[in-house]
């Protein structure tokens, strides 16, 4: 709710919430009123749960800023509720799934019930096969991710720094993206064997492009004025790289890693589905051949868990390194 103070029309008071959890901010273009309302602002800002005002420094606002802040503020209850909302929706899906199985009467090899999948999961966990195959796939993903990210960051940095190199290499880069990874995966398996290596390479390839693009964008976006600063202080090439270019492009780099992390799971599975003796993709195919549909479900859930964990790790990295962003 936006309220204009009738006494002085230069004061804008944006207020939301109830009388028990009030918060709001006050804007005034006249300096004497800004000072008068600072105490008010501060008191109200301490009641905020998060957002820019919790690190509030007294100053005057424009109306647009005030509006923006007010929109960013949320009562504590809603915030904690939204955190659990995702989990709640998953928990609700399971009984729904069980109900569908019950009502439709579909056989177990077409649609197993949650209980079937759970039993299969416990069995696979017990005989060690699940952990073994998950471990293999995870290793492929991590090695592929490491190789892809390292290579893409180095090439991306060089491309960002050199126009001629970019012009020379861009046809290959675009072409490499035009070919679906699924199409060249069999080739790679023929060339590199059905072991772990071919999957690592497929992973690395699929991760390569998004990370490369983000690296180029990130490095190009470093403000030129900061290069001037570094050069006026006689910074060396390496100092510029580690103290300017790397931290300045980190938000974009981590964005690339976030995309890469999810794609790498796809890469590993594509490779394993072509031909493999181990890994979750192999388990998936085995379940398929043996009409062990519960096994297929277990493998799929494991893949989802892997992808979510990787995503979570990247989010943690962002939280740790990008504190300055808000």
């Amino acid at each position, binding site marked *: 709710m936006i309220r204009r103070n009738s006494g002085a029309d230069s004061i804008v008071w944006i207020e939301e919430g109830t009388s028990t959890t009030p918060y709001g901010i006050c804007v005034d273009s006249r300096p004497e009123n800004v000072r008068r309302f600072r105490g008010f602002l501060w008191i109200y800002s301490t009641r905020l749960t998060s957002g820019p005002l919790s690190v509030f420094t007294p100053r005057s606002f424009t109306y647009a800023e005030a509006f923006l802040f007010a929109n960013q503020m949320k009562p504590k209850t809603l915030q904690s509720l939204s955190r659990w909302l995702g989990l709640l929706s998953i928990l609700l899906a399971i009984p729904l799934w069980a109900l569908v199985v019950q009502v439709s009467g579909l056989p177990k090899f077409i649609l197993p019930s949650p209980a079937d999948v759970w039993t299969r999961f416990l069995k696979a966990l017990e005989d060690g096969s699940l952990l073994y195959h998950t471990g293999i796939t995870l290793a492929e993903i991590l090695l592929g991710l490491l190789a892809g990210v390292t290579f893409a960051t180095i090439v991306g940095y060089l491309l960002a720094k050199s126009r001629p190199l970019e012009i020379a290499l861009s046809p290959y880069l675009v072409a490499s993206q035009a070919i679906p990874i699924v199409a060249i995966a069999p080739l790679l398996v023929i060339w590199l064997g059905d072991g772990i290596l071919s999957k690592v390479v497929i992973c690395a390839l699929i991760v390569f492009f998004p990370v490369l693009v983000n690296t180029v964008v990130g490095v190009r976006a470093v403000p030129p*004025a900061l290069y001037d600063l570094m050069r*006026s202080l006689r910074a060396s090439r390496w100092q510029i790289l580690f103290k300017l270019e790397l*931290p300045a492009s980190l938000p974009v780099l981590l964005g690339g890693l976030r995309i890469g992390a999810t794609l790498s799971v796809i890469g590993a599975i594509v490779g394993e589905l072509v031909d493999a003796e181990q890994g979750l993709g192999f388990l998936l195919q085995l379940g398929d051949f043996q009409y062990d549909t519960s096994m297929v479900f277990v493998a799929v859930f494991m893949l989802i868990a892997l992808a979510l964990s990787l995503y979570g790790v990247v989010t943690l990295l962002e939280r740790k390194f990008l504190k300055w962003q808000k």
Partner: protein
Amino acid sequence: MTTKPILTVKDLSVTFPDNNGGLDALGTLSFDIHPREFICFLGPSGSGKTTLLRALAGLIQPTSGSVNFMHHHQPKIGMVFQQSNLMPWRTVMENIQISLELDGAGEIKAQNKAREMIKLMGLKGFENSFPRDLSGGMAQRVAIARALIHDPDLLLLDEPFASLDALTRERMWTELSNIWQEKKKTVVMVTHSINESLFLADRVMVLTKRPGKIKLDVEVDLPRPRVDDIRYTSHFGKLAKKLRAAIE
């Protein structure tokens, strides 16, 4: 001045390459700067003021002529830009420390120095704030602290207060004047504000339009320390009029 100049600029000119035989940004300039002098270059936009500062900072190579420093070839430079130009991922403390960090100074020493600068610039309480939480004036204070911390031979100011509102700008003049009084650095500042140049400098040089040449060289004999009221004296007015007449 009886001392030997700290900086000698001789027949300096800068031409930027373009399709049209090159853009002459700076005509031939020659001047000396003495230690602890506060020099101001005054000129309209496009008179090559920033180009001159960048040449002094070694950020661009002069097309002809020379920039020579006494005693050593590589002077330590502190530079303040039009925008505060802080690193958004560093806190105020960390931003101020950057030059010491690049010099490989120990962390304790750098932190002590930074605390000193924070006190000097009135930034207490903001040590761990990120630049996004600072107002324009505060950010520019951090930028000045950053430029002073490594005790530079030459302080270069590129319209440092241009992005501030009028009131903050005038407050910063007094602060900068006081700091200069205390630190006695050699300062070269460029600006297009006559008031700013007269309030701060010992000597004001007016540049012509592109390619910039020195049109007028005025000694500012106003008493120091300078206070706000000095701007309303008749002598200040006379000097301002003289400078105004020289600016195209």
